[in-house]
């Protein structure tokens, strides 16, 4: 039998039937807040609209259709879908959308696995997009402009979204330092082979080669 041992705070995760790590709750609260804040190329209102579309509400417009597609069926997303969204909205808005949808997918999955209701989307913060976009990046062999390097740099075109994305690795998975230690284990919790088993299984089911 699972005994509740946590009282309500701002995050629904605190209502889970098991105790959720404080770093995870803090990460979730920060990540949700970042969805509602003005980004590099989308306002807070536009960003929340993207998140709503990802969850299946108000799916109108190319960017919203792309958000829904990426959220619900990532394996079928191809270059043509990304270019279709970008032809209307531009590369920065498309990259920002990828980041919002990907982060929301992580947060929603965290909730559903723990048996917690999905967090309501936050109220948009006022203000226009900041216009902070990285310059000089090339498309290379990907669908969007990005610097060379592994997946953590792939959203660097929009620094605000890239930072929000990178801030989630440690609490959800491992920090860079922990990844370098093959004997890393959360104690109590899962060890590296167990974490990698889940990572491999979900990536296989999502048909993600990367």
């Amino acid at each position, binding site marked *: 039998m*699972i005994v509740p041992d946590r009282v309500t705070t701002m995050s629904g995760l605190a209502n*889970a039937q*098991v*105790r*959720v*790590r404080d770093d*995870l709750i803090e990460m979730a609260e920060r990540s949700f807040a970042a969805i509602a804040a003005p980004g590099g190329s989308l306002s807070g209102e536009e960003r929340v609209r993207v998140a709503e579309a990802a969850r299946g509400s108000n799916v109108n417009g190319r960017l919203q259709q792309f958000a829904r597609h*990426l*959220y619900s069926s*990532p*394996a079928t*997303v191809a*270059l043509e879908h*990304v270019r279709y969204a970008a032809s209307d909205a531009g590369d920065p808005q498309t990259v920002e*959308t*990828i980041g919002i*949808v*990907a*982060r929301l*997918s*992580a*947060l*929603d*999955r*965290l909730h*559903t*696995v*723990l*048996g917690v209701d999905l967090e309501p989307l936050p109220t948009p913060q006022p203000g226009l997009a900041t216009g902070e976009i990285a310059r000089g990046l090339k498309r290379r*062999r*990907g*669908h*969007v402009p*990005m610097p060379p390097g592994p*997946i953590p740099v*792939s*959203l660097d075109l929009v620094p605000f979204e890239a930072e929000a*994305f990178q801030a*989630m*690795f440690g*609490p*959800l*998975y491992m920090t860079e330092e922990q990844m370098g230690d093959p004997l890393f284990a*959360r104690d*109590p*919790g*899962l060890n590296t082979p*167990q*974490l990698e*088993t*889940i*990572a491999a*299984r*979900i*990536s296989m*089911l*999502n048909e*993600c*080669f*990367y």
Partner: protein
Amino acid sequence: MALVGLVDDMVKGDTTAHEQARDAILEELGSEALVDAAAVFGNFEMMNRVAEGTGITLPPQVLEREAEMMKTLGLEDTLKSQHL
């Protein structure tokens, strides 16, 4: 294995099976393990979408290093699609 079962049942959307898988993890591995499983599951839902959305490819040196293993696993078509 309970961890693999949890992922499979969640992706299938089978609520009853999901609850059983969750209970199995709690019984076999403990509540902290369930939290870690939920977190890493979420992390790779995120990474998979970033990878598919941005179209990022593995660095050529990684593909070359792992080419033999990928052939063993029958992934020749994937290798070809990565221009190797």
